[in-house]
């Protein structure tokens, strides 16, 4: 039962009463100031210094879908992580470094920035609470589309990134990871204006070195010849046994049907018009990104309506409504499918590398259903009423709705004779009410206000196995009972969950400028969240920002070379919202009696169960909101008229972060969750820009962005100095994104090479004596035992240095934008290769470890450089977590080229209603330079592994036209 919202109805009534009264008096007056600056409501940027602005016109023509793609290499301090080039898989923009370590997939949510459209923080369509029912968590449940990061690229006016404490000051503690603020294009007054943008293009099929059964056989045989026992020979992969079978030994031409040249297209239409009193903009759009691999695609359709009316002089009403629907064609990866099914089919026979046979498999797959759909709609109303000359009251209300759907049917023919159905529907809704009083007089601006947000998240998820036939693709239930018509009741698992959060915030902002050179902005905000049922509801976030325009000082006033010099300092202590409601209620009880591979079992002998969260971890009563301490100092300067430079040094110290720490297993808990982790991100962001007029017609603008970020684990709770956290090992004083690796130094060729201690004890790996054929791992601490103590923290998953080089060349009516992005100092683990060599544990293995995609049929780059260990050795010689698979992954990418040509001056345009006509061609992801051998190093999972499952980022070319009537 949803209780009514405690929104303040009295205030609405009073406001309405006031409006009606004013209207009667003022109806015949005309507005004195005709154009109220509308962007003011869309972007209440109270901290002008705190944001970075994307030069949007340089990216407008590119066929991008997700916000994250816009920011790569174009905004200092934003590092984009992407684990696949597949359309629909959203990149994760990380702002000023990881705030908290990513030890498991759901930690991504704790590092995700907030997306804001026209002042309204959007609710995410994927949420960690839904992941709790999955036993393997490398992807989101549902469609995987992130609607909040999927803006209408045709309708963007500005993109700002708030990187520091200002994000929280403006949008509250949910914006602790920064905010990406999108402002849409305003309505225009006058006669109707029509805008059209149209493009089409192609993503080019990649070239790869395919392999077939004989390659794999030649790879395995030397290992068998050298190490295999008769029993192991018996298990030589059956699919490689008969080299006359064309199924595995035919031509390796699977790439012909797996990859394709993929068509890209998009169209945007808008119409705007109106008077000073009322104006509007309306638009529709479509964009399709077809993937080059596996027939993946993302389609997006959207519509918006933007309207501004000034019914009476003091009153301005702005409304903005947008809606989108997105459809994703997903990959057909077996891994993804089995992880979704949590039912592991027989993996002894991989897919065929030959397209004749592979085609047959795809024909079987044609009987499947994999619908991935997401919808979103936002409606915003902003009412501004001027009470007195300098005092106005604003009321903003918004409704944000999205849903996230996946409907999956896997036919029995590809699923060991058992069909599988699942249906996920997630619905998320945010109601937001923001009221504030604003006082604006000359150099003084004051705001005081209150925000109430109610988030409601829910999902329904249903899985059913073994339907009656491959033609019945939905499970049907009798309406009058829980009696399943199509599926066995014991094979049908329904799940649902619901999460509600209310956030009540009070805030006050003040800014003042004096002597025309000093400015100060201060903000105090208190956010109360219902996630803290333990009584620690409230958090306080003060932020101060100071500016000093040094050019106005006498001593610099005369310096001719320097045109502008501004110093900014900002500091703050801002709260950080928890990603889930599991921690703030003190000790709790839940259902958790499952075991590995059977997490869903919830009853014993039909009886329901309720116990403490032994597997998830104990939560004590004192969980509070973590907070970040910010300090940043920045200088911006303009010199010799053409050079702009900005330099910012920042530090963000996150304290009281939640972390699972181990507890004595005797108490039954795997860990307990406590506040007390501290992480500092510090860095320097440098922007250099030059604008040059090379000749009368030739103009060149170039900008280099460099951001250097280091993170460091300052402390762990209870004085711990190191901890294993999911897939990460953390050590105090070290970065939170390091690898923890054994140092590989070759191979023991003979048993007598194994070192023996003075006391006659041979070197062991965790107590297991090493033998010939085992890796020569460095015994770092010299205790003749190779174990975790000999692992060394090294490397970085997130590049310490990241940035871009962006150029615009203009010659007469031609404009060329060239954009590079780069990452320096990062590494990754080539688990794709490690897993190939680890065939002894993976060939035919059950569960996800044994899965081979069709992309398995590729040659291993530099296969010769890896020593030939005994793959059956119990020391796991080919574990990826060793320096053998550790590779440098720095890269430089020519990420975008755009050539635009203005047609407006040509004869055929004259005499038409065209105000602007521009044709353009683009090329994206043109080239990547990297020392990394295993593919595109910018595609890595959040844990630093390059698993080879990712779809490549294709080279894409488009041609398009923009017209304004």
């Amino acid at each position, binding site marked *: 039962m949803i209780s009514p919202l405690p929104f*303040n109805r*009295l*205030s609405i009534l*009073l406001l309405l009463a*006031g409006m009606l009264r*004013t209207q009667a008096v003022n109806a015949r007056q005309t507005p004195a100031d005709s154009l109220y600056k509308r962007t003011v409501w869309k972007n209440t940027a109270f901290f002008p210094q705190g944001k970075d602005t994307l030069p949007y016109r340089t990216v407008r023509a590119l066929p991008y879908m997700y916000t994250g793609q816009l920011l790569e290499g174009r905004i200092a301090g934003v590092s984009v992580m992407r684990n696949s080039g597949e359309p629909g898989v959203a990149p994760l923009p990380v702002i000023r470094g990881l705030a908290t370590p990513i030890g498991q997939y759901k930690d991504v949510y704790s590092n995700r920035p907030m997306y804001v459209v026209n002042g309204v923080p959007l609710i995410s369509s994927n949420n960690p*609470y839904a992941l*709790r029912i999955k036993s393997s968590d490398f992807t989101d449940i549902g469609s995987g589309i992130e609607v909040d990061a999927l803006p209408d690229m045709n309708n963007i006016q500005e993109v700002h990134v708030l990187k520091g404490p200002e994000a929280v000051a403006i949008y509250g503690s949910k914006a602790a990871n920064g905010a990406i603020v999108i402002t849409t294009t305003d309505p225009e007054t006058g006669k109707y204006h029509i805008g059209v943008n149209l493009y089409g293009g192609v993503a080019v099929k990649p070239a790869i070195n395919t392999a077939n059964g004989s390659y794999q056989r030649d790879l395995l045989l030397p290992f068998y010849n050298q190490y295999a026992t008769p029993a*192991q020979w*018996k*298990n030589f992969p059956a699919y490689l046994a008969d080299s006359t079978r064309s199924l595995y030994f035919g031509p390796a031409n699977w790439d012909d049907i797996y990859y394709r040249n993929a068509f890209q297209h998009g169209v945007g239409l808008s119409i705007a018009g109106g008077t000073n009193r009322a104006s509007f903009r309306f638009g529709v759009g479509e964009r399709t990104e077809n993937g080059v691999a596996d027939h993946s695609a993302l389609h997006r359709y959207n519509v918006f309506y933007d309207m501004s009316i000034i019914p009476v002089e003091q009153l301005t009403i702005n409304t903005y409504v947008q809606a989108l629907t997105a459809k994703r064609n997903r990959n057909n990866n077996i891994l993804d499918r089995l992880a979704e099914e949590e*039912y592991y089919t*027989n993996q002894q026979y991989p897919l065929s590398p030959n397209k004749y046979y592979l085609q047959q498999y795809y024909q079987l797959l044609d009987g499947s259903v994999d619908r991935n759909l997401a919808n979103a709609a936002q409606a915003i109303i902003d009412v501004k009423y001027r009470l007195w*000359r300098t005092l106005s009251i604003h009321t903003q209300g918004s409704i944000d709705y999205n849903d996230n759907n996946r409907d999956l049917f896997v036919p*029995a023919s590809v699923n*060991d004779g*058992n069909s599988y159905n699942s249906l996920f529907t997630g619905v998320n809704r945010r109601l937001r009410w923001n009221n504030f*009083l604003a006082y604006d007089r000359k150099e003084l601006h004051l705001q005081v206000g209150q925000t109430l947000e109610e988030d409601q998240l829910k999902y329904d998820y249903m899985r059913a*196995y073994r339907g009656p036939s491959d033609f019945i693709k939905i499970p049907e239930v009798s309406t009058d009972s829980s009696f399943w018509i199509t599926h066995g*009741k*014991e094979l049908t698992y329904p799940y649902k*969950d619901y*999460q509600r959060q*209310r956030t*009540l915030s*009070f805030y006050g902002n003040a800014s003042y400028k004096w002597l025309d050179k000093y400015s100060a902005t201060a903000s105090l905000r208190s956010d109360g*969240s*219902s996630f803290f*049922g333990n009584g620690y*509801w409230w958090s306080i976030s003060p932020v101060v920002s100071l500016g000093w325009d040094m050019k106005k000082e006498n001593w610099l006033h005369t310096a001719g070379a320097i045109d502008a010099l501004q110093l900014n300092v900002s500091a703050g202590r801002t709260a950080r919202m928890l990603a889930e*409601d*599991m921690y703030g209620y003190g*000790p*709790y*009880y*839940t259902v958790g*009696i499952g*075991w590995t591979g*059977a997490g869903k*079992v919830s*009853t*014993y*002998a039909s009886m*329901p*169960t*309720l*116990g*403490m969260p*032994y597997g998830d971890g104990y939560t004590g009563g004192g969980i509070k909101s973590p907070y970040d301490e910010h300090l940043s100092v920045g200088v911006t300067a303009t010199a010799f008229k053409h050079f702009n430079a900005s330099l910012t040094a920042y530090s963000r110290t996150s304290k009281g972060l939640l972390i699972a720490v*181990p*507890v*004595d297993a*005797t108490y*039954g*808990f*795997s860990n307990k969750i406590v506040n007390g982790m501290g992480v500092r991100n510090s860095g320097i962001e440098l922007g250099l820009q030059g604008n040059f007029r090379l000749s009368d017609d030739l103009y060149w603008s170039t900008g280099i962005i460099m951001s250097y970020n280091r993170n460091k684990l300052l402390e762990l709770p209870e004085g711990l100095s190191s901890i294993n956290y999911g897939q990460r090992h953390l050590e105090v004083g070290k970065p939170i994104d390091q690898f923890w690796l054994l140092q590989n130094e070759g191979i023991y060729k003979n048993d007598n090479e194994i070192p023996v201690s003075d006391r006659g004890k041979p070197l*062991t790996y*965790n*107590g297991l004596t090493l033998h010939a054929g085992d890796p020569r791992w460095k015994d770092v601490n010299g205790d003749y035992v190779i174990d975790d103590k000999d692992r060394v923290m090294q490397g970085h998953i997130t590049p310490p240095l990241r940035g871009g080089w962006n150029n615009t060349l203009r010659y007469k009516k031609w404009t060329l934008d060239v954009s590079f992005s780069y990452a320096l100092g990062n590494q990754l683990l080539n688990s794709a290769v490690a897993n190939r060599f680890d065939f002894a544990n993976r060939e035919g293995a*059950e569960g996800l470890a044994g899965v081979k995609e069709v992309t398995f049929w590729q040659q291993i780059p530099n296969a010769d450089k890896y020593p030939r260990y005994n793959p059956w050795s119990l020391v796991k010689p080919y574990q990826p977590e060793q320096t053998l698979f550790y590779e440098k992954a720095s890269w430089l990418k020519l990420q975008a080229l755009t050539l635009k040509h203005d047609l407006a001056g040509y004869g055929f345009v004259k005499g038409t209603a065209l105000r602007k006509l521009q044709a353009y061609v683009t090329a994206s992801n043109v080239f990547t330079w990297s020392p990394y051998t295993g593919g595109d190093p910018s595609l890595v999972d959040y844990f630093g592994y390059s698993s080879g499952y990712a779809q490549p980022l294709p080279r894409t070319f488009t041609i398009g036209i923009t017209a304004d009537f």
Partner: protein
Amino acid sequence: MTTLRLPIKVLLVAAMLTASCKNTLEVSPTHLVPEKNMWTTRNDARSAVFATYGLFRAALADNNAYLVYGELRAGDFKSAVRTDLSAVTTNQLNASSATLEGWKSWRRFYAAIAQANLCLEKLALVHEHDFRYTPEEMKLDIAQVRFLRALTYFYLVRIWGDVPLLTNTGDGNFTPVKREQQDKVLEQAMLDAQTALKDLPWSYYGTSPELLSNYWGQPGNIWQGVIGSKGAAYALLAHISAWKGDYLSAERYAHTAMDNKARGGYNLVDVSTLTGSADASTFSGQGANVIFALPFKNIYQESSGSGHIEDWTLADPYISRVTPDIYVPSDSILKIFNEPNDSRYKVGTDGIATGNYFAGFGNPVPMFTKIRMPGITGVDPLRLFQSAIVVFRYEELVLLRAEALLFLGKNEDATFQLNAVRAQRNLPDFKTGNLANAILAERRRELLGEGWRWYDLVRFEKLTTYTSFKPADIARGAQWWPVSKDVLSSGKEITQTKFWQQ
């Protein structure tokens, strides 16, 4: 400009800034039960007690742990395809593998103990809050929980030897606990089992003095064999005593349990019930010979792919797979089933094998088919199994009594008990030979695949015969499992078993 009256404006602003904070922020969570809402109604007690059962079941089912601890190390089963399992069958427990780390961790057992401790501390609160939760029900629930705690500690001692002993929840304080002498732990287990014994009924048909109504409103057959009963408590006490070497007590407890077989509803069964797949077969968990078993019934959606021996032992045509993960080699089969006319399994002189224990005798990898409880029948069945983990059953108890009598020097009585089981399996009476070996061999045959063999070898002190361990290894604790890295690093007071120290 000033068209609104001042009071209205003031009101407007004031109204805007007021909202009742407390009510706004009090939102009840929907996917967890905070402490203050727990232990208030009768159903909370029920859910908490059955969570203890569920956690104990999870501890034993996790990657077939019960089988790994109780059977694989003894080497009757081999694995060709899984390095982690072959490491166990060859007793290389330091091998690198995530599953091995899981088996080396005792956390799941202690989760069951923690839940039991929690119930013992808090069940009284339910009685205070909800009058419907009668003292009789509470007494019985406490007995269930104590029975489980005793059983869990017994498993812990059998697997790890000296283990920490904890009888309270700690209430959020996780003070490190030391390993306790196994005698002390077993003493606590005995105490718990004896206490439980008093309040547990023989059966749940509403006719026992301990329980004169239906337990949780369910008919008695629902509970038969799958929750604690007097019979199960006696069997447990007999086993703890035998493990301690106190065969006098072991015999006494086993004797009592056997004398009351009619009240307890268990008896010897024939091979068709033992190896059948029907609802009343042994591995449904409710066969007529089951004293206590952990069920995984399909009809309650408790069946699963993992946590069942079938997941490792079956292959085509039962499930889609070429080679099973573990198997008993043909020559071992011949050694184990070395008597003619054994109705469980026999290989005739003509090489023709009969019986349900195995399929494909003579193949390089025969299939162990004794336990086969598919959740699904039909063509291409889904890998979903519902075989129960049978903790105690009657044949096993009879053999335990035979063993106790043997060690008490009552060979004649021991032979009598042994022959009761042998007769049931179509074998002639044992007459001459080494009685101890005969009992051990009979247990091996009867209980193959049920997770007993390793414990039997320990009790009979035959580890050095059947494994490569030397007496010195055993003295250093080779019979125990090592503890995992996680347990060692989180338990400040926990030390590695001597034999497994690196």
